[in-house]
């Protein structure tokens, strides 16, 4: 079989690429799909921490590319979902340790054994972005509703178009509906209008995401979280399901004080 290769990219750092990778990888695995998440941020390994798999890593992607282990040996199986695998980045190397061809080969090899391969791209528009984006069948652009992040997203979409690589769809992450209402934050329509690509999901800001990442238990596992629901919806849309967009909910005073799923 040949699974679908999806790269999560953004241009700007800190907008939630790794969070999206962890949650969508897990979200697809929860739906019964077999998923390989590849951490392409060589030298700045994070995905393992968010998935809570840090202490299970033996080999990494660079070890595999350099022939020090077999492909299966480099994969780390998730503790809750046996159909979810992580191919970790090397922490002691940098992005020059692998070429575009290396990454394409690894991504397609992963696609041989999985339904979905999700690549967590490094920030920036240099070599790391390029080797992560080149093998993709679909690129998900993560942005925040703020001017700088949207501009960088636009830059990345322009580069993908210029190269003729995969089509891009948009995730607007960390949206605060009450700030949008007060005109203090860009509203999703404005972002979509400027970037002119299709939206695949809007994820509300949720303080629990940070706590979830630190615990190594992604928010998608929390039934009552709106952010978790947003990621579950995106996972379904990736499978081709027609899931309507939920109306933006403003947090209640109680939620503002105690967090969204207290």
């Amino acid at each position, binding site marked *: 079989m040949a699974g679908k290769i999806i790269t999560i990219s953004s241009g700007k750092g800190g907008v939630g690429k790794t969070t999206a990778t962890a949650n969508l990888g897990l979200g697809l695995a929860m739906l019964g799909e077999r998923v390989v998440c590849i951490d392409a941020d060589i030298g700045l390994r994070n995905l393992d921490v968010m998935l809570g798999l840090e202490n299970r890593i033996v080999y990494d992607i660079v070890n595999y590319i350099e022939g020090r282990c077999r492909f299966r040996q480099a994969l780390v199986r998730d503790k809750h979902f046996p159909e979810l695998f992580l191919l970790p980045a090397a922490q002691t190397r940098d992005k020059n340790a692998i070429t575009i061809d290396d990454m394409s080969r690894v991504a397609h090899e992963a696609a041989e054994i999985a339904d979905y391969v999700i690549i967590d791209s490094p920030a920036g*528009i240099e070599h790391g972005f390029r080797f992560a984006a080149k093998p993709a069948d679909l690129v998900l652009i993560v942005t925040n509703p703020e*001017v700088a992040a949207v*501009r*960088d997203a*636009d*830059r990345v*979409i*322009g*580069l993908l*178009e*210029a190269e003729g690589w995969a089509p891009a769809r948009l995730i607007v992450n960390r949206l605060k509906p009450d700030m949008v209402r007060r005109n203090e934050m860009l509203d999703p329509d404005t972002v979509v209008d*400027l970037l*002119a690509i299709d939206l695949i999901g809007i994820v509300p800001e949720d303080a629990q995401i940070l706590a979830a990442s630190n615990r190594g238990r992604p928010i998608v596992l929390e039934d009552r979280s709106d952010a978790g629901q947003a990621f579950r919806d995106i996972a379904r849309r990736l499978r081709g399901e027609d899931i309507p967009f939920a109306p933006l909910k403003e947090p209640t005073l109680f939620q503002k004080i105690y967090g969204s799923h207290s």
Partner: protein
Amino acid sequence: MEEIPLTLKGTQQGILLKPQSEDWAEILSALEDALRDAEDFFRGGRVILELGTKALTEAHLLAVRALLDQYEMELWAILSEDQETIHLTRSYGIRTRLPGETATHEKPADTPENNALLIQRTFRSGQSMKYPGHIVILGDVNPGAEIIAGGNIIVWGRIRGMVHAGALGDESAIVCALDLAPSQLRIAGHISRAPEERRHSPQPEMASIDQNRIIAQPWTARG
């Protein structure tokens, strides 16, 4: 308006330089500024220096040629009515007449200035377009994109990035868009920034130079 030491014009034969000043130091520095500002237009091109009745010394000829060399441009012809200058020009193997013409007046329809480039796509952050004639875009110019034209810039869409019309010094150049909200708008040597507040209902506008500054007015059908 202050005296321009040098005018530049794109023609079918090459870039036409016409010194307006008598002061060669001033002419050379104006030429250098122009080449540096619009390097991408000029690089690799050929140059016709039209002097009229002005005389050219050997030192100035060499100075012009050296400057053009830096931008990989060829001093292709020097047009002068001064006999000594013609003689000097010939001694350097540079032509003194344009082929097939006795005068330098080209038909307006043939000049790149009167040509337009039509582009049907949106310019995203980091993308740019430079063209010596007019540029017509069916799409948007997003923040962080750059459009630079020797002539006018017409955008059937939104301008949010940087646009520079009349980049070779044409002060009559205009910029039109359905929604004109550039981060910066330049016409010839004039620069204006976008107003700080965003308008809620954009209307088509045209920017031009009026009394030495850039103004924008509604872009409507002209009766």
